[in-house]
């Protein structure tokens, strides 16, 4: 009898512990309870429960701890301070899979807040334990371990290096081949976090053959997987020419453009970011992308989306056009300039406008043909307005000025230059007048148009210091016209005529 009584006491205690841990785990799901739980000293209570005899209490306690650390950075720091981490790392090697999942969850939750906390996780040999978990059979455990490693590697290059040194990368690449979708997603996301910091880390990831496996998953139907795969490829290819070339050699390109019509916005954005990172290295890579019709796809993408996600597309067009004038002509021929003009007028954020203005400058600065294409889209007055607007940011103003200068120096299309004569400040006016002085001496029709549209009058009204380049250009323009016309349009001529009338004696 007494034996049963004694056993009953222990069973009651166990039930009480189980209930406590489960309730705490449920409460920890809501952020508003965290503060209260912390004040009630939940950490010191959960800690011995993690060493409990009953496995289910252990892993529920770990789960509760993980949720607490996930929702609040203070609790995560407290977890580190209370030295719970070495205990977790140690027990990761020995327990069953539910405990491993929960322990990996705690490590992930702690590591996600800041680099110092991740460093603490690394210091207590958590990374080695997590890499051991990656070798398990259970996909849930692998997923939790991979997620934790991803959170650690996300912060900076040193932490990524420690993850790589523990030998995580081949295991992550193997996990990419597993059939479970969630595991694939997390593995791809972790690889992208590792390779984003430095070229050496990206090279390590590539050396294990990750690119081929990632390339196979491009056409999978799962949206989140596609997002992560493209993000990983982007992070790999952004560092150097050889890495970008390796990504291109995996022959993703004509296939990846079908993902540009995916209904999910972030998949499209990641594809375009990948194209931007590949294109910015060399003209040959840009040529590859242009040849498989990439420009058209990106321009359609710009037409269909709005807001911040347009930025990679705009920058991609700018990088393509920057390499050479034939590529810039390709952008013009694919009707990129009207689309960029639309973006400029529709978007309201300064950084997107700055990127658009930069791209337009890259397209237009090569030859007079390119400058004419830019000018006929009526972009020059808009860019001038952005430059003059006091509310534009510094960056936008500098970029507008540079773009205007570079396009104006090649623009010979006079009808578009004339509106600029009236509104431009003197440093821009210098270039406009210079262009007029280059074109007018050779074209008689242009001279006639110049006079009739009032341009000559405006040029006479410009005040310039004698000896400055502006004055030389004005003199060159005046030299193209007969003296009477120049005098007729010079300011104050009507007053001079009237004064002559005062002195005139009729015969």
């Amino acid at each position, binding site marked *: 009898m007494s034996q049963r009584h004694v056993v009953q006491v222990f069973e009651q205690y166990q039930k009480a512990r189980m209930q406590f841990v489960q309730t705490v785990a449920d409460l920890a799901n809501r952020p508003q309870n965290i503060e209260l739980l912390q004040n009630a000293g939940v950490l010191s209570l959960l800690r011995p429960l993690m060493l409990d005899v009953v496995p289910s209490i252990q892993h529920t306690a770990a789960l509760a701890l993980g949720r607490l650390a996930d929702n609040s950075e203070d609790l995560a720091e407290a977890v580190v301070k209370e030295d719970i981490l*070495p205990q977790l790392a*140690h027990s990761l*090697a*020995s327990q069953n899979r539910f405990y491993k999942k929960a322990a990996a969850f705690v490590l992930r939750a702690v590591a996600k807040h800041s680099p110092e906390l991740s460093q603490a996780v690394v210091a207590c040999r958590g990374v080695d334990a997590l890499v*051991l978990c990656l*070798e398990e*059979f259970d*996909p849930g455990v692998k997923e939790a371990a991979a997620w934790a490693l991803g959170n650690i590697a996300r912060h900076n290059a040193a932490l990524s290096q420690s993850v790589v040194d523990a*030998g995580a990368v*081949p*295991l992550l*690449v*193997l996990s990419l*081949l597993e*059939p479970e979708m969630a595991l694939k997603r997390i593995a791809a996301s972790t690889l992208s976090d590792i390779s984003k910091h430095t070229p050496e880390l990206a090279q390590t990831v590539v050396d*294990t*053959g990750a690119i081929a496996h990632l390339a196979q998953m491009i056409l999978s139907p799962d949206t989140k997987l596609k997002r992560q795969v493209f993000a990983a490829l982007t992070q790999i290819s952004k560092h150097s020419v050889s890495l970008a070339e390796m990504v291109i050699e995996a022959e993703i390109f004509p296939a990846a*453009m*079908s993902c*540009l*019509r*995916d*209904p999910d916005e972030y998949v499209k954005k990641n594809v375009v970011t990948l194209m931007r990172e590949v294109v910015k290295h060399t003209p040959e890579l840009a040529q590859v992308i*242009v*040849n*498989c*019709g990439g*420009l*058209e*796809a990106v321009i*359609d993408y710009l037409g269909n989306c709005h807001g911040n996600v347009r930025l990679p597309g705009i920058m991609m067009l700018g990088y393509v056009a920057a390499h050479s004038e*034939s590529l810039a*002509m*390709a952008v013009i*021929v*694919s009707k990129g300039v009207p689309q960029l003009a639309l973006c400029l007028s529709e978007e309201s954020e300064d950084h997107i406008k700055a990127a658009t203005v930069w791209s337009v400058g890259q397209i237009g600065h090569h030859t007079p043909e390119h400058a004419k294409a830019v000018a006929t889209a009526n972009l020059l007055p808009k860019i001038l307005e952005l430059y003059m607007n006091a509310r534009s940011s510094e960056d936008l103003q500098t970029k507008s000025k540079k773009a205007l200068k570079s396009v104006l120096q090649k623009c010979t299309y006079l009808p578009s230059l004339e509106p600029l004569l009236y509104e431009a400040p003197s440093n821009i006016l210098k270039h406009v007048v210079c262009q007029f002085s280059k074109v007018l001496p050779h074209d008689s029709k242009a001279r006639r148009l110049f006079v009739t549209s009032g341009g000559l009058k405006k040029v006479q009204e410009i005040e310039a210091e004698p000896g400055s380049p502006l004055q030389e250009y004005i003199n060159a323009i005046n030299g193209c016209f007969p003296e009477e016309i120049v005098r007729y349009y010079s300011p104050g001529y009507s007053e001079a005529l009237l004064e002559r009338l005062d002195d005139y004696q009729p015969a």
Partner: protein
Amino acid sequence: MAELLKIKREFEEFQKEYYYRNREADENREKENQAATQIQSWFRGCKVRAYLSHLHKKAIIIQKIWRGFTARARVRQMVKAAYFIMKMNFYEEMAVRIQRTWRGFFVRKYIHNFYARKKYMEGLVMKNELVRRELDQLEELQKRERDCLDMVKEHTAKVYQAHRLHHLLSTKQCPGVFNSPFRPAPHEMELLLRQVKYQAPTRLVSRGKACLLGIPSSTSSSFPATLGSPLIKTSRTYSSRPILPPIANKTQQGLYREAGEAWEQRLHCRELMLCLQTSYMHLEEAQNQLRQLEPVRLRCIY
């Protein structure tokens, strides 16, 4: 006396005449002197002029001959030079022609081919159009697939609802909720209820649910034909036990892979499999190692 008078008169006349003649001579002396000078000077002038003209004529002859000589020499020289220049111009023009052809050929072949660039731009426009059309088609296809899937899901949800609301079926005596007498025809829910086969709420219901949820994956196209699910009445008689889904379903549960896959993976990604080429007991060995190191580690920490 008369002679004396005559001589005196003659002497006086003579004196007068002498005086007169002297006076005349004196008066005319100047004039005559001047005249004589004039005559003499004129004559001398004539002499000198004749001499000069003689000299001129001779000088002219000499100069004429000399100038003709030098001019002819110069003309000969000029003709030679003009010939030389004409030859040089001809050579230069031919050289320009050669260089022009060569430079045009070289630039067009090796540096910049204008027609190739023009063709490239036109080709690019066509390729862009092609790509756009293909992408449109692909998008259309994907959209149709997704719509199809959605429809199947919706239908399955409705069937499930019908299964749960089977008790609302109208009987002979009493019309059901969905079969109001004021309606011209029964509601679609009513028709569905009539089609759905009732299942007793035993443990088999959970299996039935699994069958229910397993349906959408195998019926993506032409769903009306294949909704021979165990829940919907078919014309043939059914047994009381639920029909299991067909084994043709390829997706496997859990971790099991095709027979040759693991071996293939080992063959192709040998370096990735290295970490798995550990011994069967490696986990226990690792745990033993950790346990051995533990006192050392704990001592280090504290």
